[in-house]
Protein backbone atom coordinates (compact mmCIF):
# COMPACT_ATOMS: atom_id res chain seq x y z
CA UNK A 1 0.00 0.00 0.00
CA UNK A 2 2.71 2.38 1.03
CA UNK A 3 4.63 1.45 -2.04
CA UNK A 4 1.66 2.24 -4.28
CA UNK A 5 1.25 5.71 -2.93
CA UNK A 6 4.83 6.73 -3.35
CA UNK A 7 4.68 5.43 -6.90
CA UNK A 8 1.70 7.63 -7.66
CA UNK A 9 3.30 10.68 -6.13
CA UNK A 10 6.32 10.22 -8.29
CA UNK A 11 4.13 9.94 -11.36
CA UNK A 12 2.45 13.21 -10.48
CA UNK A 13 5.72 15.04 -10.28
CA UNK A 14 6.81 13.79 -13.64
CA UNK A 15 3.45 14.72 -15.12
CA UNK A 16 3.23 11.45 -16.97
CA UNK A 17 0.11 10.05 -15.32
CA UNK A 18 -2.96 10.70 -17.44
CA UNK A 19 -5.17 10.85 -14.34
CA UNK A 20 -3.10 13.32 -12.35
CA UNK A 21 -2.22 16.02 -14.81
CA UNK A 22 -0.33 18.93 -13.32
CA UNK A 23 -2.51 21.95 -12.81
CA UNK A 24 -1.64 25.08 -14.77
CA UNK A 25 -0.95 28.19 -12.76
CA UNK A 26 -2.78 31.41 -13.57
CA UNK A 27 -0.34 33.57 -15.51
CA UNK A 28 -2.03 36.77 -14.34
CA UNK A 29 -1.72 35.81 -10.67
CA UNK A 30 2.00 35.20 -11.20
CA UNK A 31 2.35 38.64 -12.76
CA UNK A 32 0.20 40.14 -10.00
CA UNK A 33 -2.18 41.73 -12.50
CA UNK A 34 -5.15 43.55 -10.96
CA UNK A 35 -7.16 44.28 -14.06
CA UNK A 36 -6.41 42.79 -17.46
CA UNK A 37 -5.81 45.49 -20.04
CA UNK A 38 -7.73 45.49 -23.31
CA UNK A 39 -4.91 47.47 -24.90
CA UNK A 40 -2.49 44.53 -24.65
CA UNK A 41 -4.29 42.65 -27.35
CA UNK A 42 -1.24 40.67 -28.40
CA UNK A 43 -1.14 39.02 -24.98
CA UNK A 44 -4.90 38.46 -25.09
CA UNK A 45 -4.56 36.73 -28.44
CA UNK A 46 -2.96 33.78 -26.66
CA UNK A 47 -6.23 33.24 -24.81
CA UNK A 48 -8.27 32.88 -27.99
CA UNK A 49 -8.75 29.72 -29.98
CA UNK A 50 -7.90 29.64 -33.66
CA UNK A 51 -11.51 30.55 -34.34
CA UNK A 52 -11.36 33.59 -32.12
CA UNK A 53 -13.28 32.20 -29.15
CA UNK A 54 -12.09 32.71 -25.59
CA UNK A 55 -10.29 29.58 -24.36
CA UNK A 56 -11.79 27.88 -21.32
CA UNK A 57 -10.07 28.02 -17.95
CA UNK A 58 -9.38 24.32 -18.04
CA UNK A 59 -7.10 24.85 -21.02
CA UNK A 60 -5.26 27.94 -19.89
CA UNK A 61 -5.22 27.48 -16.12
CA UNK A 62 -6.45 31.03 -15.52
CA UNK A 63 -8.09 31.53 -12.12
CA UNK A 64 -11.79 32.42 -11.97
CA UNK A 65 -11.25 36.05 -11.09
CA UNK A 66 -8.79 36.66 -13.89
CA UNK A 67 -10.89 34.69 -16.38
CA UNK A 68 -13.77 37.13 -15.77
CA UNK A 69 -11.45 40.07 -16.15
CA UNK A 70 -9.95 38.50 -19.27
CA UNK A 71 -13.38 38.04 -20.84
CA UNK A 72 -14.17 41.73 -20.30
CA UNK A 73 -10.83 42.77 -21.76
CA UNK A 74 -11.30 40.57 -24.84
CA UNK A 75 -14.77 41.98 -25.41
CA UNK A 76 -13.49 45.54 -25.18
CA UNK A 77 -10.69 44.78 -27.62
CA UNK A 78 -13.17 43.15 -29.99
CA UNK A 79 -15.33 46.26 -30.00
CA UNK A 80 -12.33 48.29 -31.15
CA UNK A 81 -11.48 45.71 -33.83
CA UNK A 82 -8.21 44.91 -32.08
CA UNK A 83 -9.32 41.29 -31.72
CA UNK A 84 -11.64 39.31 -33.95
CA UNK A 85 -15.14 38.13 -33.09
CA UNK A 86 -14.78 35.18 -35.44
CA UNK A 87 -12.01 33.74 -37.56
CA UNK A 88 -13.20 31.30 -40.17
Amino acid at each position, binding site marked *: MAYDRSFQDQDDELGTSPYHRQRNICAFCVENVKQIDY*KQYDTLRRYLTEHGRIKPRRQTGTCARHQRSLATAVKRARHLA*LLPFVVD
Partner: protein
Amino acid sequence: MREYEVTVLLRADLDDEARAQLIARLEDWFTLDGSEASKPVVHHWGKRSLTYPIDKQTDGYYVFFEARLDPAKVSEIERKMLYVEEILRHLFIRKDE
Protein backbone atom coordinates in the same frame (compact mmCIF):
# COMPACT_ATOMS: atom_id res chain seq x y z
CA MET B 1 -14.61 64.42 -11.91
CA ARG B 2 -13.36 61.06 -12.99
CA GLU B 3 -10.41 59.70 -14.91
CA TYR B 4 -11.34 58.11 -18.20
CA GLU B 5 -9.53 56.25 -20.93
CA VAL B 6 -11.08 57.01 -24.27
CA THR B 7 -10.09 55.13 -27.39
CA VAL B 8 -11.34 56.52 -30.68
CA LEU B 9 -11.07 54.72 -33.98
CA LEU B 10 -11.02 57.03 -36.99
CA ARG B 11 -11.21 56.25 -40.66
CA ALA B 12 -7.74 55.69 -42.07
CA ASP B 13 -8.49 57.39 -45.38
CA LEU B 14 -8.63 60.90 -43.89
CA ASP B 15 -5.87 63.26 -44.92
CA ASP B 16 -3.55 64.57 -42.23
CA GLU B 17 -5.22 67.94 -42.00
CA ALA B 18 -8.75 66.58 -41.62
CA ARG B 19 -7.51 64.13 -38.98
CA ALA B 20 -5.70 66.83 -37.02
CA GLN B 21 -8.83 68.98 -37.10
CA LEU B 22 -10.99 66.14 -35.88
CA ILE B 23 -8.59 65.26 -33.07
CA ALA B 24 -8.49 68.92 -32.04
CA ARG B 25 -12.29 68.86 -31.90
CA LEU B 26 -12.26 65.75 -29.72
CA GLU B 27 -9.65 67.32 -27.45
CA ASP B 28 -11.95 70.27 -27.08
CA TRP B 29 -14.81 68.00 -26.05
CA PHE B 30 -12.60 66.32 -23.47
CA THR B 31 -11.49 69.60 -21.95
CA LEU B 32 -13.54 70.61 -18.92
CA ASP B 33 -12.83 74.30 -18.77
CA GLY B 34 -10.41 76.22 -20.94
CA SER B 35 -7.44 75.58 -18.65
CA GLU B 36 -4.32 73.69 -19.74
CA ALA B 37 -4.50 71.34 -16.77
CA SER B 38 -7.90 69.96 -17.78
CA LYS B 39 -6.75 69.09 -21.29
CA PRO B 40 -6.59 65.39 -22.12
CA VAL B 41 -3.33 63.54 -22.77
CA VAL B 42 -3.35 62.34 -26.37
CA HIS B 43 -1.58 59.19 -27.55
CA HIS B 44 -1.49 58.40 -31.24
CA TRP B 45 -1.46 54.67 -31.80
CA GLY B 46 -1.57 55.38 -35.51
CA LYS B 47 -2.83 53.39 -38.42
CA ARG B 48 -3.51 49.73 -37.81
CA SER B 49 -5.32 47.08 -39.73
CA LEU B 50 -8.69 46.10 -38.31
CA THR B 51 -9.40 42.47 -37.46
CA TYR B 52 -12.76 42.75 -39.18
CA PRO B 53 -14.03 45.35 -41.66
CA ILE B 54 -16.06 48.28 -40.31
CA ASP B 55 -18.01 50.34 -42.86
CA LYS B 56 -16.07 48.51 -45.58
CA GLN B 57 -12.83 49.85 -44.10
CA THR B 58 -9.94 47.47 -43.50
CA ASP B 59 -7.66 49.97 -41.72
CA GLY B 60 -8.25 52.46 -38.98
CA TYR B 61 -6.41 55.22 -37.16
CA TYR B 62 -6.40 54.81 -33.38
CA VAL B 63 -6.20 57.74 -30.98
CA PHE B 64 -6.09 57.18 -27.24
CA PHE B 65 -6.99 59.90 -24.72
CA GLU B 66 -6.52 60.09 -20.99
CA ALA B 67 -9.04 62.61 -19.78
CA ARG B 68 -10.70 63.90 -16.63
CA LEU B 69 -14.38 64.19 -17.35
CA ASP B 70 -17.59 64.96 -15.59
CA PRO B 71 -19.42 61.62 -15.50
CA ALA B 72 -22.69 63.38 -16.31
CA LYS B 73 -21.17 64.74 -19.52
CA VAL B 74 -19.90 61.43 -20.86
CA SER B 75 -23.16 60.33 -22.43
CA GLU B 76 -23.49 63.72 -24.07
CA ILE B 77 -20.02 63.45 -25.58
CA GLU B 78 -20.79 59.92 -26.74
CA ARG B 79 -23.94 61.09 -28.46
CA LYS B 80 -22.02 63.83 -30.23
CA MET B 81 -19.44 61.27 -31.38
CA LEU B 82 -22.10 59.11 -32.98
CA TYR B 83 -22.92 61.90 -35.39
CA VAL B 84 -19.34 62.15 -36.61
CA GLU B 85 -19.08 59.79 -39.55
CA GLU B 86 -15.28 59.70 -39.49
CA ILE B 87 -15.40 57.99 -36.09
CA LEU B 88 -15.81 54.26 -36.63
CA ARG B 89 -15.70 53.22 -32.99
CA HIS B 90 -15.23 54.75 -29.58
CA LEU B 91 -14.76 53.31 -26.11
CA PHE B 92 -14.96 55.06 -22.74
CA ILE B 93 -13.46 53.20 -19.79
CA ARG B 94 -13.25 54.47 -16.23
CA LYS B 95 -9.63 54.30 -15.23
CA ASP B 96 -10.16 52.49 -11.95
CA GLU B 97 -11.78 49.54 -13.73
